[in-house]
C-alpha cells in the first residue's frame, strides 16, 4: 500500500506511514459460510436499529455482562453472545479468556481487534456495515418521513489518494476566497448583459445545477446551445482566474437566438434577462430534472423549475360576484412605482406597519408597498366591462392578482423607465427593499385574511415556506437614454460584492440596501421536495 507522507510536518504526531487498515485476525474470522449472516444479525439487532421495537430491545439487552452498564462504550463479541464495556476493560477480559479476538462497537459499528490492539477497517465487513446502516435508515424514514437521505462523505480510491499525495498545494475554499467571483469585460455597451450574467451565475440552485454538470445537450449543434455556453460560463467564473472573462461567445449566441436584442447599442437588463431565460428554456431539451416529462404542456427544465411561478388572476363580476380565475406562468414581477403617470397609488406609502422589516421611514416606499399595490383588487371601470359567463352579459368587475405558485427564484423588476405618450423618463425614486422577504401576504391563499384587514404576518410561525433571501441586485445609473448598469451579488452566504463589469470589489450590506434597485433577485430559503 502506498505510504502517505505528511506534507510539511503536521502538528499531529502520527505515523503516516501506515500499513494495511485491516489485519490477519479479521481474515481468520471471515471463513466459512455463516460469518456474513451472523455479522448482519449483530448489526441489525445491536448496532443500527430501524424500528422502535428493535431500539427498545437493544436498550434492554445491551448491557455489560460484567458490570451491567449500558454506557462506557459497549462492545459485542463477534464470536459469541457477550457484551462488555470498553472503558472498564470488561470486553478485553472476555477476549483474553475466550480467545475471541474481535468485537464490534455498538455505537458506531467499528471492529476492534484485541491482538492488534486497534480498530481495524476491513473492506468486506465495511460493505456489510454500510448496507445494514442504510437499511436501518430506510426503516426509520418509513416511520418518520422527513428524515432526509443520509449523504455519505466522499471516499477516495487508492489511485485518487496517490494522485492527491503528489499535489501538496491543496486549498480549502473558505469564505475569504475569491473563487466564484470574476469580472466580465464590457464588449461595448454590454454592461446590461454582464449584470445579468453575474446574477445568474450566483443563483445558488442554478450554480449547483451547472457545476455538477447536469446539462445534457440535445441541440443539433452544441456550439449554438446557449445552455452549453452557460455551463462554460460557470466554469470560467468559478475557475479562480483573476483576469476578467470575455463573454464574447455569449453575446454572439444571444444575438443569433434573440434577434431583437442583436445590435451594438445600450439595452435594458430586464429585457435581456427575459430573453436569456427564454432561450435557455428552449435549449434545455435534454435535461430531465426530476419529474418525468410525460406532460407535454408542462416543461420541467431547470429554468422552469427555478424561475417559473404561477400568477393568479381573479376577475369578479360585480353583478353576480362570480369569480373567473386564470393562472399564468411568469418569470418575474414588474412593479409600478409611485410617481409614474400610468400608475395609481391608493395606499400612502409607509403607512402600514413594517411587514418585512424594511427600513420604515414615513414617505419611503418599500418593496412590500409595491407588492401590496400589485396584488390589490382593482376595479375595472365601466369602459372595461367583462363578459360574465353566468350573467351572460357585460358587467363591471374587479380584478386581483396574487401568487398562486411561488418560484424558487423570484425576480422583481421596478418599472423605472417611463414611456408614456407625455414623457419618457427614468423614475429614480428610492425604493426600500429587505434582505429577507415573506411572500405569504401576496399569495392567493392569503386573500381572505387580507380582505378582513389582517395583513399581519405570522411573525415567527416557523412556517418558512414563503420566505426568501435577497442574493442579487442590478442597478442602473444614468438617464433613460444613456446609463450604466452595475450589480451586487451575494457570495459565501453573507458577503456582498459589487460587480462593475471587469471590476469586482467588496461591498457592505448597507451599500446594497441603500442602492436604488432596478432588478431584485430573491431565493427561496427552504426548498421542498416535489
Amino acid at each position, binding site marked *: 500500500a502506498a505510504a502517505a507522507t505528511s506534507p510539511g510536518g503536521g502538528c499531529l504526531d502520527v505515523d503516516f506511514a501506515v500499513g494495511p487498515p485491516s489485519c490477519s485476525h479479521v481474515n481468520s474470522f471471515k471463513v466459512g459460510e455463516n460469518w456474513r449472516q451472523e455479522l448482519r444479525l449483530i448489526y441489525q439487532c445491536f448496532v443500527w436499529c430501524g424500528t422502535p421495537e428493535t431500539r427498545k430491545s437493544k436498550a434492554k439487552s445491551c448491557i455489560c455482562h460484567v458490570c451491567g452498564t449500558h454506557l462506557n462504550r459497549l462492545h459485542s463479541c463477534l464470536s459469541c453472545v457477550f457484551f462488555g464495556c470498553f472503558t472498564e476493560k470488561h470486553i478485553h477480559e472476555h477476549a483474553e479468556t475466550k480467545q475471541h479476538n474481535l468485537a464490534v462497537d455498538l455505537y458506531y459499528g467499528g471492529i476492534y481487534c484485541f491482538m492488534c490492539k486497534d480498530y481495524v477497517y476491513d473492506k468486506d465487513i465495511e460493505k456489510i456495515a454500510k448496507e445494514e446502516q442504510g437499511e436501518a435508515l430506510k426503516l426509520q424514514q418509513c416511520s418518520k418521513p422527513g428524515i432526509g437521505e443520509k449523504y455519505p462523505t466522499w471516499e477516495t480510491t487508492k489511485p485518487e489518494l496517490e494522485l492527491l499525495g503528489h499535489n501538496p498545494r491543496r486549498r480549502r475554499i473558505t469564505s475569504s476566497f475569491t473563487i466564484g467571483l470574476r469580472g466580465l469585460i464590457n464588449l461595448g455597451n454590454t454592461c446590461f448583459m454582464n449584470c445579468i450574467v453575474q446574477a445568474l451565475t450566483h443563483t445558488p440552485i442554478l450554480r449547483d445545477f451547472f457545476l455538477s454538470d447536469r446539462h445534457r445537450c440535445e441541440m443539433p449543434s452544441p456550439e449554438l446551445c446557449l445552455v452549453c455556453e452557460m455551463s462554460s460560463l460557470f466554469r470560467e467564473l468559478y475557475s479562480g482566474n483573476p483576469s476578467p472573462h470575455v463573454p464574447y461567445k455569449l453575446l454572439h449566441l444571444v444575438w443569433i437566438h434573440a434577434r431583437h436584442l442583436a445590435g451594438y447599442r445600450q439595452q435594458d437588463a430586464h429585457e435581456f434577462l427575459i430573453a436569456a431565460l427564454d432561450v435557455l428554456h428552449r435549449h434545455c431539451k435534454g435535461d430531465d430534472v426530476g419529474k418525468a416529462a410525460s406532460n407535454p404542456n408542462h416543461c420541467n427544465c431547470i429554468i422552469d423549475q427555478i424561475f417559473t411561478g404561477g400568477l393568479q388572476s381573479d376577475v369578479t363580476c360585480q353583478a353576480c360576484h362570480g369569480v373567473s380565475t386564470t393562472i399564468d406562468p411568469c418569470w418575474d414581477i414588474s412593479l409600478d412605482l409611485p410617481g409614474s403617470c400610468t400608475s395609481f397609488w391608493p395606499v400612502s406609502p409607509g403607512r402600514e406597519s413594517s411587514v418585512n422589516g424594511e427600513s420604515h421611514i414615513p414617505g419611503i416606499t418599500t418593496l412590500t408597498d409595491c407588492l401590496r399595490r400589485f396584488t390589490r383588487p382593482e376595479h375595472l371601470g365601466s369602459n372595461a366591462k367583462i363578459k360574465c359567463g353566468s350573467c351572460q352579459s357585460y358587467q363591471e368587475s374587479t380584478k386581483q392578482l396574487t401568487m398562486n405558485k411561488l418560484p424558487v427564484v423570484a425576480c422583481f423588476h421596478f418599472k423605472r423607465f417611463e414611456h408614456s405618450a407625455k414623457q419618457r423618463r427614468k423614475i429614480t425614486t428610492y425604493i426600500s427593499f429587505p434582505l429577507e422577504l415573506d411572500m405569504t401576504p401576496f399569495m392567493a391563499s392569503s386573500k381572505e385574511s387580507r380582505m378582513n384587514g389582517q395583513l399581519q404576518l405570522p411573525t415567527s410561525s416557523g412556517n418558512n415556506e414563503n420566505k426568501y433571501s435577497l442574493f442579487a441586485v442590478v442597478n442602473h445609473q444614468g438617464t433613460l*437614454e444613456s446609463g450604466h448598469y452595475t450589480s451586487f451579488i451575494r457570495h459565501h452566504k453573507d458577503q456582498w460584492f459589487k460587480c462593475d463589469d471587469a471590476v469586482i470589489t467588496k461591498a457592505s450590506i448597507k451599500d446594497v440596501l441603500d442602492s436604488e434597485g432596478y432588478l431584485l433577485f430573491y431565493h427561496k430559503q427552504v426548498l421542498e421536495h416535489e
Partner: protein
Amino acid sequence: MEEMSLSGLDNSKLEAIAQEIYADLVEDSCLGFCFEVHRAVKCGYFFLDDTDPESMKDFEIVDQPGLDIFGQVFNQWKSKECVCPNCSRSIAASRFAPHLEKCLGMGRNSSRIANRRIANSNNMNKSESDQEDNDDINDNDWSYGSEKKAKKRKSDKLWYLPFQNPNSPRRSKSLKHKNGELSNSDPFKYNNSTGISYETLGPEELRSLLTTQCGVISEHTKKMCTRSLRCPQHTDEQRRAVRIYFLGSSAVLPEVESSLDNDSFDMTDSQALISRLQWDGSSDLSPSDSGSSKTSENQGWGLGTNSSESRKTKKKKSHLSLVGTASSLGSNKKKKPKPPAPPTPSIYDDIN
C-alpha cells in the same frame, strides 16, 4: 437496566438526569468524531485535510481602495482580445460588440456597403470584381488564401442584406413563417458571395451547392462561384465542367427556372437560412408562450403587455422595432447622452 418513573422526582433530580443524558450525547458525538479521524489516519487519507498555507493566500479576497478583490488595479484590461466567431479575426474585447454588428451585417452602414457591393458585382468587365470591395465590407479581410479556412461561418448572406434589391431572397414568402425550427444544417460556410472554398465542403454540401449555384471555380481565388445557376460571369460549359469534375461524368447541369435572378436562392436554401434568424417554435408552456397576459396595462409582468418597455419574447409579435423604443439603457462609462438612433432598416421591416 430498570425502568424508572419520572413522576414524583423533584426538579434537582430531573436536572441531574437531564445533565447526565446531555453529557452522554456529547460524549457519543465526540467518540464518533474520533473514529472518523482514526479511520482517516489508518486508511491513509488524513493528509487530505491539510492545506498549503502559501497557496491559500493566492485566493484571499483583497479589500483595499483602488484595487479589486484580486488585488488588481482597475482599468488595466484594454489589451484583452477575443476571436470573432464569425470572421475569425482577433478583435479588441471592448470593441467586440460594434465589430460583431458590422461583421454580421447589421450595422447602420451595412446596407450602404452591401448595395455598393451589389453594384460592383453587376459590373461585367472584371471577373471577381467584388474582391475589390472586400476591404469595405464589414471591416473584414476576406482574402483568406490557404491558411485560414473559413470554419464555422454562421453568417453569410443572412446578415448582409441588399435592402433595395427587389429580388432579394429575403422577400420570399418563407419570411412569413416565424415559427421555423432552428436549422439543423451546418452553419453555411459561405464567404459572402465572392465564393466559397470548396475544400471546406463535405460531399453532400458540394452536391447541394452544385444544384443551386453556379459553382465555377475562379482561377484567381480558387473558390467556387456562389451566384445563381445562370450567373452571367460564367458559361454553361464551365458549369458543366465543374460538375463533371466533382460529381463524375454523369453529372448534369440542373434545370433552372427562368424567373430566378442573380443572387437568388433556391427556396429551400433560403428557408433554411432564414429560419436561422428566427426562434424555435417551442410548444412548451413557459411565460413566453402565455397567451392570457392581455389585461390592463397596469398588470406588471415581465412579459410586458406594453410593447414599449419590454420587448416581448413571444414569437408571434413583431419584436423587431429597434432602437427607437428602447427602454432603459446601460453601457460602459461613456456618459454622453445618446439620443435614440433612428431605426436601422431591417429585414423585418418588410413584413409588418
